[in-house]
């Protein structure tokens, strides 16, 4: 009976002792056991109940005290199986906690479960994990995808089982599934949250991200997770962390918002078009200035190919440690170290991963490097320059997360070689801009069409999270779509 509540609401209940952490934990665990979406890698039942039982006296000033949460299975959790949804790590139990997990533990949030992802966080469909497809809880017919790679964390949050869940975002792996699952999905500035303990996919693009069901909750989570990590992550910023929650005031008068003509040209569903216009009207009504700007389509259509080259190149290197010697299965009788490695990697990785490793490796070979890897880096800089140019004059860029509200699950999940039209390629991949430039970016629910929710995205200047939350909050308030979940949908 406490499912589908926000962090703020649960905190109230906990502080007034209407419910205990143990009761919340037990309820969440029971709900997870009935999960129909295949969102679960590991249920941390014993650990969670033990920890929740130890939480007796509520901490009034600590909004995370006793709050259950879920964690994508590519965050290192001490003593708890962490597979990254890959067979090569199917027995891996880390010896240390990721910094974010440690911070949540210190804040006495209760880790309930580890959730599924696209294998090693590569992929955007929620279909490539070693446990198979993770489904969208909004679609009992199991036809439409939840997206990925943070599919499991999106699902359990959308089902109202936990009020927030950790994800990671290298291309759009939090902000895109947030849209398919009707959640708030945040990826702050690169370096705002320590990545220590997050399994690397492509470090120059990787971000810790998370899902919540309200903008205010997402501000609370960032204040907890953000901050320097001098001894573990040299890329993590030492800028002071702000009290994002208290800084939300809903006043956006005089703020300038841009939307990009060429991105919106890829919108396929009329309801998205209509909702976009509605949002522009709302923002203007509240005193913001909204303008259309233009970026060369040639540049925008290069986001996806250059993202593939850069992310695959980094990925092939980052995952070279999974070689069957330290990690991964020792398969069959072998006599050389090469055989150990080849066997482990052949058996341990899925087809899509191998394909991406080949792409990454190929683009780094000295014969191809200039033409592929270096060129991709140049394109990345070009895109970053363009976007920062826009953000020089604007506080945020507003964009749809996808051209369509729902997208069917297809078996072959990597559409590298499929031919889609340029406009679709742009609108389905533009969120990668936030990763290329390391900009803070938030997806928030803006509409529901035939029972399926969808989000829009706001991307802001580096380290301007305060503005990002404030703009997102203003829209959320007017659209009246706070705290969507399948629980609520059923209740209504």
């Amino acid at each position, binding site marked *: 009976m406490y499912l589908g509540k926000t962090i703020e609401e649960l905190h109230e209940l906990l502080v007034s002792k209407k419910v205990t952490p143990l009761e919340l934990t037990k309820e969440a665990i029971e709900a997870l056991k009935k999960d129909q979406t295949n969102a679960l890698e590991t249920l941390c039942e014993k650990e969670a109940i033990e920890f929740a039982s130890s939480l007796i006296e509520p901490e009034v000033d600590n909004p995370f005290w006793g709050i259950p949460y879920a964690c994508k299975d590519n965050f*290192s959790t001490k003593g708890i199986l*962490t597979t990254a949804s890959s067979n090569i790590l199917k027995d891996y139990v880390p010896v240390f906690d990721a910094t974010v997990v440690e911070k949540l533990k210190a804040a006495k949030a209760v880790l309930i479960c580890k959730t599924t992802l696209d294998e090693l966080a590569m992929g955007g469909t929620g279909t490539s994990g070693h446990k198979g497809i993770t489904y969208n809880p909004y679609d009992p017919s199991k036809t439409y995808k939840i997206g990925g790679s943070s599919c499991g964390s999106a699902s359990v949050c959308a089902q109202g089982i936990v009020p927030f869940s950790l994800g990671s975002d290298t291309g759009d792996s939090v902000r895109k599934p947030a849209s398919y699952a009707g959640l708030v999905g945040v990826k702050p500035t690169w370096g705002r949250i320590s990545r220590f303990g997050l399994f690397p996919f492509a470090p120059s693009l990787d971000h810790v991200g998370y899902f919540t069901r309200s903008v205010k909750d997402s501000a609370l989570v960032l204040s907890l997770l953000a901050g320097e990590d001098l001894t573990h*992550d*040299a890329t993590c910023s030492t800028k002071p962390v702000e009290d994002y929650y208290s800084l939300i005031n809903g006043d956006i008068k005089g703020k300038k918002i841009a939307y990009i003509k060429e991105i919106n040209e890829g919108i396929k569903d009329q309801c998205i078009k209509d909702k976009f216009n509605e949002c522009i009207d709302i923002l203007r009504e509240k005193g913001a200035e909204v303008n259309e700007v233009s970026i060369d389509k040639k540049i925008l259509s290069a986001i996806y190919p250059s993202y593939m080259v850069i992310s695959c190149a980094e990925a092939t290197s980052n995952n070279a440690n999974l070689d069957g010697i330290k990690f991964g299965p020792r398969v069959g009788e072998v006599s050389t170290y*090469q055989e150990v490695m080849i066997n482990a990697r052949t058996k341990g990785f899925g087809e899509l991963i191998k394909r991406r490793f080949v792409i990454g490796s190929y683009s*780094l070979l000295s014969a191809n490097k200039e033409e592929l890897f270096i060129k991709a880096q140049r394109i990345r800089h070009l895109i970053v320059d363009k976007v920062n140019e826009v953000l020089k004059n604007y506080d945020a860029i507003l964009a749809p997360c996808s051209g369509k509200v729902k997208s069917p699950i297809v078996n072959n999940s990597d559409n590298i070689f499929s031919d889609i039209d340029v406009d679709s390629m742009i609108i389905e991949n533009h969120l990668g801009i936030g990763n290329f430039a390391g900009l803070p970016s938030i997806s928030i629910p803006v509409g529901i069409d035939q029972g399926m929710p969808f989000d829009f995205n706001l991307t802001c200047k580096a380290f301007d999270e305060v503005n990002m939350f404030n703009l997102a909050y203003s829209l959320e308030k007017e659209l009246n779509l706070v705290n969507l979940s399948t629980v609520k949908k059923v209740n209504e």
Partner: protein
Amino acid sequence: MNFEAVIGIEIHVEMKTKSKMFSSSPVAFAKEANTLVSPLDIAFPGTMPIVNKQAVINAIRVSNALHMEIDNELHFDRKNYFYSDLPKGFQITQDQRPIGKNGYVDVKLSNGTVKRIEIERLHMEEDTCKQLHMADYTLLDYNRAGTPLIEIVSRPSIRSGEEAMKYVEAIKSIVVFTDVSDGKMEEGSLRCDVNVSIRPYGSDKFGTKVEVKNLNSTANVQRAIDFEVKRQTKLLLSGVKVEQETRRFDEMKRETVLMRKKTDAIDYKYFEEPNIVPIKLSDDFIQNAISTCPELASQKLERYIKVGLTEEEANQMLQNRLMASYFDECLKINPKRAKAYWNWLNGDILAYLNKNEIEITSLKVTPDNLDSLIDMIEKSTLSFNQARNVFEKMTIDNKSASLIADESGLKQNSNEDEIRKIVLQTIEEFPQSVVDYKAGKDRAVGFLVGQIMKKTKGKVNPQITSKLVVEILKTK
């Protein structure tokens, strides 16, 4: 046809920093296997490198000693390849922007000429783990994984085995005296790979190069190169091509033997390490690293010659960094006694250390005490032989020289009044000596001094005694 050798050398130096290049686990040698490891050293997913500041300071110091341009921004790259001793599947190194470039070192050859050897680059990187190959399995020790390394790459401007040996000695001296490394080739804390090719004199083309590994002493560097030059010359003279290959030096046979033919070079797929953002090195930081750098051997040499050592003596002192720093402590007390210190250090002290197989850091005699001992000799409070006895006791007790001399009654009596009494008494005992002396037999003086020494067990100052004997005999 006459050939000249073209030699380039890559030197890897293990730094003796407190912690590893990118992790906080300690650096130490000969510890139980796999006890000095952190998650990063075994490449646990999610671990990230943190650059070791002392390693950077060390690299700056060595770059400066090698007259290199020092980069004001730190960049690291990944060198990607699969090997069982490589935990991450890549090594973090500095490919594009080494911290030091375009330097040189001057070496003095045995014929007295000075040769300038050009150095292309110096960069930081991390060591791999250690493999122990057993009969049908291999053991991995991750203690070494991540140990900070400096790699120094010379230009192919070396022309002989001797030049190569002197070059390696010079590098070794620099890393040892800057306190960057133990620089022990025999233990692998300084490792060098040598590339040797030959070409006809006057040619500006390079011949096919052969890489020689497994060189565990500077003498072997010279031997291996000399052998290799002969081998290649013989091949070319008999019309056989030199093949590109890797050879190792066999110490017993004193020759190089084939390890493997060079197949296609590995493509290391370098790219910039994304987990280390470029680090700006301020001028202050660089200058501070340099100005606080321990003194180099070449600087000490100059200083030692100034205080009165010969070049040979000074060089001998610089064979051992610890010995030299003990000597420096002594010089701080009294630079005028340089020669005396040197004599003790290279005489009784060295003999003592060798006999007991210890380093000078374990010597109980402090520079202060050594100085007080020399002081007593100079003031004739102790004879040299007495001083040696006192020294022997000092090595056990760490007491001051005068205390030991007192305790063992070794102190020499230089009090003229007291000695005069003994002299008068002795002359009375031997009246014949007065007669002899008057008869012009100077032997009488020696006889009397000898008797006095016997009587006092050598505790009176012989010079004063002799002076007084003559003085008193004259009055008789």
